[in-house]
């Protein structure tokens, strides 16, 4: 089902729609088919103007079995279309979906408010594929292509992109290529020859700035941003990582690029993942580690080491529901306080959050740039929602990205090399091993200012604690000033968000302002340090709200740093904010 959804998304993107997707699947690899927890869904929102969210409700629902219908029917709009595979509503499937046999929704009238198209997709597919003499299982597997064909007809899409994909995907088995293409075409023709609709649903292409586009999801974009930064910085990439949902796709992607001098090291655990990256960074590579919340918890001590060694390091946290193992495949933004404060001692690091799938490219690039230029660990926060969600993206060639100048050196004009001597941005220059005359020792014990020798001196410790904090604060010189995504400083109230909630908040405020309210949106990408003008912006508002998918984390920081009586809007259900939910919460807070 995930593959079918991806194909529809890519085809629509190429057609020119703006879109947002939300793949939602169980944590188990082969969760029992037909059961309620086993439902694997792919939500896609396409439009002819800007699309900011995967949508609260659906116009069309494809349900391959009773469980899929039962778990999703609540979000289908009145008069919405249901394409249901009747084979998935037999007694066995009803039992699995915990529906009694006399309450088959296809027959009991409960779907009267919708336009129901109930067809035996399994049988139709098998009939269409009879000439291929496929085994029963292979033939049945093609039913997703059959239903995709129907959907393509319904939305008037061309089949070419998916046909190309089938050719590549089954390149080693010509029979499967032909069978899948046949199923796709048969579905399309089935849509055409049946009179469910007088004509397909027309959604025109959106207006885009001219340029070269591709569809990209957050994890791909993160991998590309990191790789691009390493090329730009002429500092080859080292990834030390341990597989974890939903971060593993970054490991998979970067592992493909050894031809670009990328070393990917699948370590024995999360700790070895980050420590190998620190070793690589010490040796002059761009050290990166990727994980999700539970893994980040294990890396904590090593992040402290990198803070003390003042070596560049990028830590990607693709957040998921917590605590502990939590909800591995569901989305949440509950690791912000862990990112900001989750280490022993005074150990500030830079924290950046990506807002959309394609924004992961820019923010991953900036994370690497800041790490290399400021000799500091940088944590990039993404989450399951944008990591797996895709959108069309205007490709940014490397020539258009900002330059990166690392602090790695092989020689110095100074009389003696002082490992902890400060540059203008308070970074230190790191002499790479192999450089004659610059031999030196560094470690996790407190450092003496400039020399880097072990020091237990009281005043020096305080000085160094403040220096490391000042170095992180100095990053604010190199990040853009904060702007308001919507509204202005005269607007009546401000909604602050961070990370993947950008689209939902944006759409909610557009709609509320269209209803006559006057709201502003501030979306934070740089959370530590924050942009220099942030206090001035926030203090311009009497009413400040913070919307986030946790039990109240950024709000603590906002209240702490700006002494404003911010109000929180929180959702902790493993699902992104719906626009309607946000609108209701905002209205309630401002008594509108």
């Amino acid at each position: 089902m995930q593959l079918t959804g991806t194909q529809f998304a890519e085809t629509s993107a190429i057609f020119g729609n703006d879109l947002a997707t939300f793949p939602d699947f169980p944590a188990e690899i082969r969760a029992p088919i037909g059961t309620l927890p086993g439902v694997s869904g792919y939500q896609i929102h396409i439009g002819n103007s800007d699309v900011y969210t995967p949508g609260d409700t659906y116009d069309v629902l494809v349900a391959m079995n009773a469980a899929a219908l039962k778990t999703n029917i609540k979000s289908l709009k009145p008069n919405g279309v249901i394409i249901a595979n009747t084979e998935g509503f037999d007694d066995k499937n009803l039992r699995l979906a915990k529906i009694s046999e006399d309450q088959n929704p296809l027959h009991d009238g409960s779907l009267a408010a919708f336009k129901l198209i109930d067809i035996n997709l399994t049988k139709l597919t098998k009939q269409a594929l009879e000439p291929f003499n496929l085994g029963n299982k292979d033939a049945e597997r093609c039913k997703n292509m059959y239903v995709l064909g129907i959907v393509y007809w319904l939305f008037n899409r061309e089949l070419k992109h998916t046909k190309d994909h089938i050719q590549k995907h089954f390149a080693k088995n010509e029979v499967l290529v032909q069978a899948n293409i046949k199923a796709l075409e048969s579905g399309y023709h089935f849509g055409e020859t049946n009179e469910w609709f007088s004509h397909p649903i027309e959604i025109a292409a959106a207006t885009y700035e001219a340029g070269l586009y591709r569809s990209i999801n957050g994890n791909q974009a993160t991998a590309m941003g990191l790789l691009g930064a390493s090329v730009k910085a002429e500092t080859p990439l080292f990834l030390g990582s341990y597989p974890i949902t939903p971060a593993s796709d970054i490991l998979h992607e970067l592992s493909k690029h050894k031809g670009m001098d990328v070393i990917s090291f699948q370590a024995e655990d999360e700790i070895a993942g980050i420590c190998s990256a620190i070793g690589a960074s010490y040796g002059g590579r761009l050290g990166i580690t990727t994980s999700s919340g539970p893994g980040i918890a294990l890396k904590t001590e090593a992040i402290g080491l990198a803070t003390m060694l003042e070596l560049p390091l990028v830590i990607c946290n693709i957040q998921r529901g917590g605590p502990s193992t939590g909800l591995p495949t569901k989305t949440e933004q509950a690791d912000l306080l862990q990112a900001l404060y989750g280490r022993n001692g005074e150990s500030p690091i830079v924290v950046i959050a990506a807002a959309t799938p394609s924004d992961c490219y820019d923010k991953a690039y900036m994370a690497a740039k800041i790490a290399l230029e400021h000799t500091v660990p940088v944590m990039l926060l993404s989450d399951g929602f944008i990591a797996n969600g895709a959108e069309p993206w205007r490709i940014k060639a490397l020539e258009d990205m900002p330059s990166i100048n690392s602090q790695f050196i092989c020689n110095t004009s100074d009389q003696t090399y002082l490992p902890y001597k400060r540059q203008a941005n308070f970074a230190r220059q790191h002499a790479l091993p192999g450089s004659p005359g610059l031999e030196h020792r560094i470690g996790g014990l407190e450092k003496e200012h400039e020399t880097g020798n072990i020091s237990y001196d009281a005043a020096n410790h305080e000085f160094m604690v403040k220096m490391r904090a000042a170095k992180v604060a100095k990053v604010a010189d190199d990040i853009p000033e904060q702007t308001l995504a919507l509204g202005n400083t005269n607007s009546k109230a401000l909604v602050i968000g961070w990370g993947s909630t950008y689209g939902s908040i944006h759409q909610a405020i557009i709609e509320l302002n269209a209803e006559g309210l006057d709201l502003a949106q501030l979306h934070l990408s740089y959370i530590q340090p924050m942009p220099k003008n942030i206090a001035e912006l926030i203090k311009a508002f009497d009413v400040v709200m913070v919307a986030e998918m946790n039990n109240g984390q950024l709000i603590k920081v906002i209240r702490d740093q700006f002494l404003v009586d911010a109000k929180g809007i929180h959702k902790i259900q493993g699902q992104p904010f719906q626009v309607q939910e946000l609108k209701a919460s905002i209205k309630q807070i401002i008594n509108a």
Partner: protein
Amino acid sequence: MNPEQTIEVFTAKDLETDQEVRWCPGCGDYAILNSLKKVLPDLGVKRSDMVFVSGIGCSSRLPYYLNTYGMHSIHGRATSIATGLKVSRPELSVWVITGDGDALSIGGNHLIHTLRRNPDINILLFNNQIYGLTKGQFSPTSELGKVTKSSPMGTVDQPFNPLALALGANASFIARTIDRDPKHQQEIYKRAHAHKGCSLVEIYQNCNVFNDGAFEILTDKSTKASNTLLLEHGKPLVFNEGKQGIALRNGVAELVDITKQANSELWIHDENDPIKAYILSRFFEQAEFPTPLGVIYVRSEQATLNDLVQAQLSHSNTAEKTAQFNTLLKGNKSWEV
């Protein structure tokens, strides 16, 4: 003469740093440091190409006292850091300084995985069978029943056999030496360096404050000869001033009184034989056998991790990489608006 080929000449004195050595007076670590200082100038490696990475513990302070590159890292993780460094910079000579707590307790997982991956690094494991820096708790190599601050009634933990553990992890080089024998140490460090692959050297090291005399039986004049077995490749296993030897009959080691029997039946040490190496490593548990010192096992034909990693990489210039990257970014499904 090509200047790149000149090897910088340096001496033990050049390896000194301006840092005051802070081990307790009488600590076995001094002897190890001094032996290293003697050996390092003879390896044909530039001082600036040497990196010592350590974890946490008394032994792990060593990098501060050697004027090479060095990193004093966090507890148990030096092997992981060294692996990341070595695969990134294979031309460097990378050494790990660790202890029994650091390598076998908190860092046990990283140790076994480093050994199986076989990066070309040298791991020097200072085994004093105690936690020294935290002032005297039992360690994973402390003997069963040992009374320490954290085991007032005696430990109930069976100790690790570090070399058997290393063999189990498929280590390609294992050796044992002892702090009180500088010549032997130096020879072993040279061998460890020469081995292309991951070398694990267990160094018996006396902690004269918290575990004094742990290895006295191997160093005291009256007991040393009958309790130590110096291994030499191709030579028979003989100890106790030539009076005793060891034979291998049907896979079982037996003590032989050479004064009574001809020594043609003696076990000839073959450091490339993993089965014999395993039997030697088990002498650890058998009190009647002497403690083997020397190179117990070497397997030199195995590819190193760093070679395998480097073989998969291609190095191209920035312009080529930029072009490659832009092509990659475009992917095969892009469209023009």
